[in-house]
């Protein structure tokens, strides 16, 4: 294990988040079992008070999740010098078999966390806590995934071993790993991907705007925004990164959050994550439009979510296009990369 201060910070954040989630789930189960809004007895009052605690706890946890997602990449990038052949975070994540799965789970958990927060907000607007049971069911589902993520992250960091000189009596210290770690990211060909990206984005935006004005096709929009999220991620790897790095072979999606590129990656990813969470939120909330206590605000809120999602995706696209247009790289598309 590499006892690096930033690694310790990562693990600490992960354990704290895991611990808080377990605490929340424990009380959440109680709420699921005994909740009855009509009842004025003390237990109900206690539960109501406790749900404040859990909301607060989980808001913190999910905020922490977002920060720790970025911290994770950051740490991976900072550990690069310790491994032969690793050029950036992409290489470090390959050091053992837990690196990438942890990343995938982190992204997944972040989206789920965002959805939970949206549900929580809406639930609090209804005078009878209409979504409370569903909220805690979602929590019961999210919690084990977060625990698994914590375990994987621990395994990733604990399993790591730097390629260092271990004994002064040895002769050739580096093992015969002349090729080192694979920093190559599998990527799809750039030009077709550009078409896919722009056309998919156009569809998504149109659908979103249509929903905003006509209140139809919410589920479709949610689905499209999820799809767009994946397409955008693939696009970043496949062609967007090329233009940002101004290098036709550098596909790494992690280096764009580094200082050399003006931290542009943070903006891109935040826009993207925001867009997908609000888009999925639309789909998650539509089933509840008929709930009486939410009648006053829900439709308006869903439309606002959709609008937010559309704006975020549009901003993302604008930023991407700006990067492409102002980049010094010119890809001659006769050659397929």
């Amino acid at each position, binding site marked *: 294990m590499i006892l690096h201060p930033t690694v310790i910070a990562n693990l600490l954040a992960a354990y704290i988040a895991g611990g808080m989630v377990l605490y929340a789930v424990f009380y959440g189960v109680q709420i699921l079992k005994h909740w009855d809004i009509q009842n*004025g*007895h003390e237990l109900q009052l206690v539960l109501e008070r406790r749900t404040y605690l859990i909301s607060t706890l989980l808001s913190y946890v999910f905020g922490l999740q977002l920060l720790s997602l970025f911290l994770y990449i950051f740490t991976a990038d900072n550990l690069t010098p310790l491994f032969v052949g690793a050029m950036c975070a992409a290489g470090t994540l390959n050091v053992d078999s837990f690196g990438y799965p942890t990343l995938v789970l982190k992204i997944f958990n972040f989206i789920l966390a965002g959805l939970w927060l949206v549900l929580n907000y809406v639930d609090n607007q209804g005078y009878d806590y209409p979504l409370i049971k569903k909220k805690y069911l979602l929590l019961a589902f999210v919690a084990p995934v977060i625990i698994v993520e914590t375990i994987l992250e621990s395994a990733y960091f604990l399993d790591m071993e730097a390629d260092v000189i271990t004994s002064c009596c040895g002769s050739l210290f580096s093992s015969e790993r002349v090729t080192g770690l694979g920093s190559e990211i599998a990527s799809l060909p750039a030009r077709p991907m550009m078409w896919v990206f722009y056309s998919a984005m156009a569809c998504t935006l149109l659908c979103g705007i249509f929903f905003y004005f006509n209140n139809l096709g919410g589920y479709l929009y949610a689905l499209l925004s999820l799809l767009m999220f994946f397409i955008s991620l693939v696009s970043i790897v496949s062609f967007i990164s090329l233009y940002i790095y101004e290098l036709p072979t550098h596909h790494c999606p992690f280096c764009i959050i580094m200082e050399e590129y003006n931290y542009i990656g943070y903006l891109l990813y935040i826009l993207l994550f925001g867009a997908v969470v609000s888009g999925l939120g639309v789909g998650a909330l539509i089933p509840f439009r008929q709930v009486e206590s939410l009648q006053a605000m829900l439709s308006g809120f869903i439309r606002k979510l959709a609008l937010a999602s559309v704006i975020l995706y549009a901003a993302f696209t604008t930023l991407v296009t700006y990067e492409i247009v102002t980049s010094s790289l010119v890809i001659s598309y006769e050659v397929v990369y």
Partner: protein
Amino acid sequence: MIELMNVKKVFNAGNPSEFSALNSVNLNIAGNKVTVLKGPSGSGKTTLLSIVGCMSRPSAGRVKLNGREITSLPERFLTDIRRKTFGFIFQQPNLIKGISVLDNVMLPAYPLGEKRSQLKMKAMKGLAELNIADKSASKVEWLSGGEAQRASIVRALINDPYIIIADEPTAHLDTKLSYRFMEIIEKFKSEGKTVIITSHDPLVYESSIVDHVVKLRDGQIEGKQA
């Protein structure tokens, strides 16, 4: 205006120290009238007052405000209604030490996020009506008993509530100040507000301004309502 149907309040339910503060209370409080809840200590006056004033929820029974059922509203909504509907005057002025009178008076309006200049104007107007505008910047520790009472009344009025609730308001006031207090209550009534007072001070419940007197004993209402 306010209806209580079969309201019960039990503390420490299930424990040996279980205690029933209110037993099957049925009460109707009329609008634009002054109602006094009278009774010895331990009769459940304060508990009843806090249920009427949306400060706590009954263990059983129903509470309606202006026809709307508020029994099982979660705290968030209850507080919202309470903020806009009720103004509380406590036995003690209950002002926060260390901040000025003006800040104390504006306190209940903070969560509503009203514009500061407007809020300040409202507060100063309220202080002027009760003749303590000159004390607006002083710390509350420097106020006399009567002035503190008046400050707490201004605080109770800051959100323009239409129901005023006072809990033993004259308990710590001398006769002159008590009469002054009742004059203020009369003013409220003439403004169309509803007033609910708990008191065991004859000066209060025998006053001519009072419309109804409700007698409480051991958590239940005695006899018929006046």
